[in-house]
């Protein structure tokens, strides 16, 4: 008699339920992830008349995306790999991609949550609201942007095995992204075109550009389209590196 294997859809549903439960039990960490965007929304309220609501909202969302993709995802993968959780799953009759697919699906849900939270907080604290089309496009660009940081997180756990080093590296990159992205564009405009361009076309800059452009669909321009392409490019490159280098054990 032919050996039967479970349906992939059944396996994915089971993994998703477990990963969502895990995420829910880590809700304190999730809340902390959401606090930073709110701090930016509140502290940058004074910049809205000068730079516009979409500028502040897009920065807040981008920082939330970086925190969840870069730190949340990479650290949880590094920790579970070190504990042998993946090895235990892999000896079951399930394709390896379902293990990561479920994790990424949960992170995409987190991205949706962050965008929603920032939209609500932006309306509540800063009185910023978008058109229905703006909300829809912003969710899509947030997902596209979130994928960049998930892929960067994947590249980190692909290149580094120790969970402690993954933690330190992701924090360092988080700090660099935030400092260069948030303050670079504001403060270094006078420091020269090359430096300014580097910041604008960095993974922080392109994501911020597409998220901001998504909030005002009528103003979507060539620069936003180019930023979207570059964002996809970053995702492909980092995901390729992260998948190619990834090892299921930390030993």
């Amino acid at each position, binding site marked *: 008699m032919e*050996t039967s294997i479970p*349906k992939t859809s*059944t396996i994915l549903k*089971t993994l998703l339920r*477990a990963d969502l439960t895990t995420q829910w*039990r880590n809700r304190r960490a999730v809340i902390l992830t959401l606090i930073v965007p709110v701090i930016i929304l509140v502290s940058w309220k004074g910049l809205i008349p000068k730079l516009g609501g979409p500028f502040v909202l897009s920065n807040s969302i981008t920082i939330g995306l970086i925190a969840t993709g870069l730190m949340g995802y990479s650290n949880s993968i590094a920790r579970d790999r070190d504990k042998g959780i993946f090895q235990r799953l*892999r000896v079951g*009759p399930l*394709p390896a991609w379902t293990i990561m697919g479920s994790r990424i699906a949960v992170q995409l849900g987190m991205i949706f949550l962050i965008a929603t939270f920032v939209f609500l907080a932006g309306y509540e604290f800063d009185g910023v609201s978008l058109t229905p089309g703006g909300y829809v496009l912003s969710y899509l660009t947030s997902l596209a942007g979130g994928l960049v940081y998930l892929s960067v997180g994947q590249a980190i756990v692909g290149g580094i095995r120790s969970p402690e080093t993954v933690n330190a590296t992701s924090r360092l990159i988080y700090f660099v992204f935030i400092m260069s992205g948030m303050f670079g564009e504001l403060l270094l405009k006078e420091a020269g075109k090359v430096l300014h361009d580097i910041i604008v076309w960095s993974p922080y800059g392109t994501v911020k550009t597409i998220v901001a452009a998504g909030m005002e669909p009528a103003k979507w321009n060539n620069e936003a389209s180019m930023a979207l392409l570059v964002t996809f490019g970053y995702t492909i490159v980092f995901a390729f590196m992260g998948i190619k280098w990834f090892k*299921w054990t930390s030993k």
Partner: protein
Amino acid sequence: MKEDNILTVNDLSVSYGKFNAVQNVSFSVRRGEIFGLLGPNGAGKTSTLSAVEGLLKPQGGTIMVDGNDAVAKPLHARACLGVQLQSTSFQTELYVIEVLQLYAGIYGVPMSKDDLLGILREINLEDQAKKKFGELSGGQQQRVSLVIATIHNPKLVLLDEPTTGLDPQSRRQLWERIEAIRDKGHAVLITTHSMEEAESVCDRIAIIDHGRVIAIDTPQAMIDKHRNDPEVIAVSRRGKITLEDVFIALTGKAIRG
């Protein structure tokens, strides 16, 4: 007609870079038997088991699990296996009952909450259902791991050093559970450092050293065969020849990494 062997490993080779961890290893596990894989540290036991489990890709040889080629049809082969790894860890945030639910789902076994609680009741852990795996004692963790390894009624159960770190009571209880698995018609492949364990529960054993199988037989037949070897007599400590004496004589007295 069903083949008598549930697992057939033939000429298996596993390498880590230039280091050959397993070299041309061949053995088979019959239906309804407990087969022990014995060897010093670094002998190749876990590498052999990892290749059977599909965690390592062998450089050569074949592994057939109930007629499924473990390399060509890994999912089919793994569906026949129940596995308890050497250092088992489950999602730290999940409760014990949720871990059971997860693995039942992965193996495609639909189970209600009552079914899951019934399983925990059988291993006297019903009241621990809402505890996290890490909050259980070592013996309780082993019981949960074993019940997860057999949740889908597998034809072959692989246990990698399952009694390491257990007290005598927990070890004896685990042996009884392993024998109960065998008595239900399943085959068990177990790796162990404990000669007492091998003598007590294994129907047949293979001694593996430096990546090669150096002996396969029943524990008693192995003792009888080597009883009069000068090396065995030389290492014997209490006059009576034990499996450990035979093992030391065959693999040497030097301590391995």
